């Protein structure tokens, strides 16, 4: 964590109100409060529609949960957060019911709290560092509180029409144009930070909606698209310009951007090129990628299932993979009428990379988990359509380079499962930026950048998010956006400082 950040946090903790607040409730009382339960729609209702499953905390629930937080001297949660949100800082503001200030604290380090509160794997990040875990208790529900803060303030903003709160006001300092390629979480974070610093930012998006994976990847019932739209409108209010249907490299070249006067470019094109297993039958009608499946559902009218012509009534659907995308696809299948839905995963539940909450939701919705199974072949019926999948049984062997125990086939153990649709969700490759000269593209199509500054091998071109990391998380992509904004701004400011008017 940066020292300046650490200092702000410490100063915040030493403020009088916060000291008083800490002393107002005894730690034994705080720790005696059980973790809040996020209100959720009941499974048999939610599978009939695309409404958001988690309903969000009420004010009283949030304040009580905030009271649990012990405001530690050395907070483990902040260390676990990829963008180092001042977690005790915003939570203590919730406890004293200053929700506006809580939002301000969050917005110092994140531009998408409503999104991160919903889709971050908190149990592996902030909540994994919570002191409560050391006491054998459940961590403070940081994600739920972050979401609460963002949602409540959005509602207040709407009510009082001051969506441009003081701290968001933009002071145009530098009439310098910067371009962002891709409107996913990384691009949005970068755009927000640069706009706040006074740069003129334009975001270019190839598809017809802004938000990238937040829109076409994450389903409505996990992250309603209106939440993403509001975050984008917030950026618009800050002066960020958004251009859709513009594929950089085709509609406009990188050279065009330079000619149009953009002095800096941030490439955040993501990783959405699907991986295949290259097994027989993978191209049969009935086998599709998770992208195809989710885009058909999400890209057009995200709040209406089936608008794009996919209806699975009465069908058996198997999703291959154990990541969040796989679980999302399976939960979409349930909602579009699938009779039976399976998750087929080659390791065991413990190694599954999906968020725990998603896995629990999927179970509640009747999705069956076939762990330690791996498809080896998809079989057609007499007409050539997908009819069944042949799975090989697996067991866990030695840990591999990812630190997880690797799956090893059990010789000769196969099972055949009849299935109508298979959705392949085993990961992604980076979307290669099209035709950018003089830039180094590394292993697997990733853009090579300096790890400190995120600058590419081409001057004034920075890159971050999945295009640099390969498939990762929203929060890491966002963190990269902020980091790149920081180093690009510093590079500009450094250049200004050398300008002399002494002539």
């Amino acid at each position: 964590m940066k020292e300046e950040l650490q200092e702000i946090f410490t100063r915040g903790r030493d403020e009088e109100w916060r000291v008083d607040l800490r002393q107002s409730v005894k730690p034994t009382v705080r720790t005696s409060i059980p973790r809040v339960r996020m209100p959720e729609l009941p499974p048999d209702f939610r599978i009939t529609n695309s409404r958001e499953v988690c309903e969000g905390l009420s004010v009283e629930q949030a304040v009580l949960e905030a009271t649990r937080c012990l405001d530690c001297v050395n907070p483990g949660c902040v260390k676990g957060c990829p963008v180092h949100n001042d977690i005790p800082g915003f939570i203590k503001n919730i406890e004293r019911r200053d929700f506006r200030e809580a939002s301000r604290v969050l917005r110092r380090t994140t531009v998408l709290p409503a999104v991160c509160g919903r889709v971050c794997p908190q149990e592996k990040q902030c909540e994994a560092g919570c002191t409560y875990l050391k006491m054998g208790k459940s961590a403070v529900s940081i994600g739920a509180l972050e979401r609460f803060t963002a949602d409540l303030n959005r509602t207040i903003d709407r009510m009082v029409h001051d969506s441009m709160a003081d701290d968001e006001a933009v002071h145009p300092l530098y009439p310098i144009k910067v371009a962002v390629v891709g409107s996913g979480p990384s691009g949005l974070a970068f755009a927000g930070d640069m706009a706040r610093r006074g740069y003129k930012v334009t975001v270019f998006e190839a598809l017809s909606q802004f938000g990238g994976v937040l829109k076409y990847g994450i389903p409505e019932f996990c992250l309603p698209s209106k939440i993403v739209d509001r975050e984008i409108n917030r950026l618009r209010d800050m002066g960020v310009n958004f251009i859709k249907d513009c594929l950089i490299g085709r509609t406009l070249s990188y050279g065009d951007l330079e000619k149009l006067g953009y002095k800096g470019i941030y490439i955040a094109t993501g990783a959405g090129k699907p991986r295949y297993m290259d097994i027989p039958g993978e191209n049969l009608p009935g086998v599709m990628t998770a992208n195809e499946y989710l885009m058909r559902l999400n890209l057009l009218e995200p709040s209406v299932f089936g608008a794009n012509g996919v209806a699975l009534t009465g069908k058996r659907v198997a999703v291959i993979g154990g990541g969040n995308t796989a679980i999302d696809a399976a939960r979409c299948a349930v909602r579009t009428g699938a009779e039976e839905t399976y998750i087929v995963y080659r390791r065991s539940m413990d190694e599954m990379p999906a968020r725990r909450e998603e896995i629990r939701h999927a179970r509640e919705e009747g999705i069956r988990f076939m762990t330690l199974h791996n498809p080896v072949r998809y079989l057609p019926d007499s007409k050539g359509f997908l009819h069944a999948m042949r799975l090989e049984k697996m067991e866990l062997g030695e840990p591999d380079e990812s630190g997880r125990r690797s799956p090893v086939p059990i010789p000769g153990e196969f099972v055949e499962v009849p299935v109508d649709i298979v959705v392949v969700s085993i990961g992604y490759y980076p979307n290669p930026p099209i035709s950018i000269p003089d830039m180094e593209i590394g292993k697997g199509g990733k853009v090579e950048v300096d790890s400190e500054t995120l600058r590419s091998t081409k001057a004034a071109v920075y890159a971050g998010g999945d295009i640099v990391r390969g498939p990762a998380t929203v929060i890491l992509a966002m963190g990269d956006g902020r980091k790149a904004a920081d180093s690009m701004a510093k590079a500009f400011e450094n250049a200004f400082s050398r300008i002399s008017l002494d002539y």
Partner: protein
Amino acid sequence: MNEIKSISHYSDKTARLVISNGLIAAKAQPGQFVIIKFSEQGQRIPFAIIRADAANDEIDVIIHRGDGLDEILNKLKESDVLPDLLGPLGMPAVVESDKTVIFCGDGAGFVPLLPLMDAYREKGCRIYALMSELSSKLQCLLGDINHNCDGMTVIDEASLPGTMRQWIEQYDPDKIILSGPTMMMKELAGIAKEKGVSADCVLNMLMIDGIGICGVCRVMVGGRQQQTCVDGPVFNAWEVDFDYILNRQRSFI
């Protein structure tokens, strides 16, 4: 931008749209295509760019009924603004000069051949057009094709292979360019290969995003997986696995 400048209804089946979009007009090259959404909640549909006029900031596409486009075509009028128009997408076709080229299309499949014919023509190639009766019913095409050709014949679909064999003998082509139903392309690509004539085909695949994300338009070419939207739509017809496409196309009903 994206305003429909004019609609010419060539027949009750086919219309040519002239759409204003300076960015696409400036960049488009033969073989490339656009993705159009006719309504906010409509499908994303790929169309070959038939003509790109950078001086007037406009591009032409030809839309053909029967792809679920009837309703759209009925409603569309001049000065409408398309909600989404993305392009130019795909790889530009490699156009050779001073060659003898046979263009062969079936049905609406002839449409994507038009810009390629123009391009080959400009490079001084001798051009022969062979089309099915179905294509010839698209009156609009006949005029466009005729004025570009050194020879043009219209025959029934079933006779395409026979005539192709005959033309290969007669004109000794350097190249054959195919577009149409997959079965037809498969058969004619087979003939081209058998006769040792290099052949390209313009694949017409369903797409969702058009930028290489969904995988719907994946095809096997020369044993390697390619995406029509990013690596195509023009491929070496000798190398395309048409059976693979035939099988995949059945999933979209």
